[in-house]
């Protein structure tokens, strides 16, 4: 296991190589809070902090102030991928969140071997449940709870579906929690390891939690999709799992996809096959216990 000091040294020098799912990231940064967060959240990755510089690196990324003006006067840092900055500079204290958002950006914008959907995806009994939802739907809170209740985390943010065999490729990264969700998960699952909070971001307070160890150990194991579930948290709502039409489900998944348009008809064929083979539901909930029970009761494919 890498120590905090060795992670910090690697980040400040040649870079820290992090292998997550199918992808290798080389991360550089001189920001101490980021180094602390990476050590906390990624230390369980079995093939994670690698020193093997001979292997192919998919993404060379860094978080640094873009110049001295931003560093000393504005107190801002910026995310770079191969020298390109997709986001504007943000406050220094947001660095732990910026690196996670940046890693999402790399995969969602630059990978076309998979159909990429803005959705959480979890697995049980060899089958995946995809949960596409816009921000504020309670997707991450639900995901964080379900993975503490026996579901395997494949991804909290990006569902990657291979275009050649329609299987989900795991990309298990720390789960992002925001605002009230943070305390909900802290109280329900006191053993969950939290990273550093980034306050006053555009999304409010953001913190990432360490994924379960088993999800990381199985990050090479792909699986087919059995369920497409559109979750929606609504205060005081009764738990309700209702069948959603396949056509509407296809359209809504396409709307939540990053590269459906880029893939053209290949994207359509992937989605058609996924929706064809899956049970599609709209899911409304307010009580996590009931939501967990509803997921446990999902029927396995015949």
């Amino acid at each position, binding site marked *: 296991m890498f120590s905090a000091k060795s992670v910090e040294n690697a980040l400040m020098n040649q870079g820290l190589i992090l292998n997550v799912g199918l992808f290798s990231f080389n991360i550089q940064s001189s920001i101490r809070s980021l180094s602390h967060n990476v050590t906390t959240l990624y230390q369980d990755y079995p093939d994670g902090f690698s020193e093997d510089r001979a292997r192919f690196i998919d993404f060379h990324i860094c978080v640094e102030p873009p110049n001295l003006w931003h560093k000393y006067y504005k107190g801002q840092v910026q995310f770079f991928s191969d020298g390109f900055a997709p986001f504007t500079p943000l406050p220094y204290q947001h660095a732990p969140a910026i690196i996670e958002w940046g890693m999402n950006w790399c995969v969602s914008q630059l990978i076309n071997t998979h159909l990429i959907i803005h959705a959480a995806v979890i697995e049980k009994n060899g089958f995946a449940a995809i949960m596409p939802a816009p921000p504020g739907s309670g997707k991450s809170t639900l995901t964080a709870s379900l993975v503490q209740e026996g579901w395997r985390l494949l991804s909290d943010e990006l569902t990657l579906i291979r275009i050649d065999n329609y299987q989900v490729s795991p990309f298990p990264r720390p789960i992002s929690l925001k605002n009230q969700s943070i305390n909900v998960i802290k109280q329900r699952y006191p053993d969950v390891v939290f990273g550093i909070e980034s306050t006053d971001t555009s999304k409010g307070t953001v913190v990432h939690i360490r994924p379960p160890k088993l999800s990381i150990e199985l990050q090479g194991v792909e699986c087919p999709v059995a369920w497409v579930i559109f979750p929606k948290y609504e205060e005081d709502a009764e738990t309700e799992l209702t069948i959603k*039409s*396949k*056509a*509407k489900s*296809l*359209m809504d998944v*396409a709307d939540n996809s990053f590269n459906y*348009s880029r893939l*053209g*008809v290949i994207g*359509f*064929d992937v989605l*058609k096959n996924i*929706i*064809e083979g899956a049970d599609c539901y709209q899911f409304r909930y307010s009580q996590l216990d009931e939501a967990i029970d509803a997921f446990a009761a999902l029927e396995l494919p015949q």
Partner: protein
Amino acid sequence: MNLNYCLTSVVSLAHWGKETVIYHHGSATTHVINDVPSEVFALVFSGKIFSDRDFSASIDKGLPELTQQEKGNYLSILKKQLLVIELIEII
């Protein structure tokens, strides 16, 4: 008037019950159309030029239970829908 129409581009389809999802290769757009009988889609997606009369005949076959008035209304709405999403064009 008996206008002629043709499909504007190759399409890919997914059918689930009465719902059809259409991926239009030319514009890379996806559309859902509900409650269209297979006879009508067979005509529209045949790749051949078809006329208003062909359209009416396909509706006669696909929806024989409708009255002439209902068939006329249905044809008018469907045609407008297919033209608006630029799946077919008048030639």
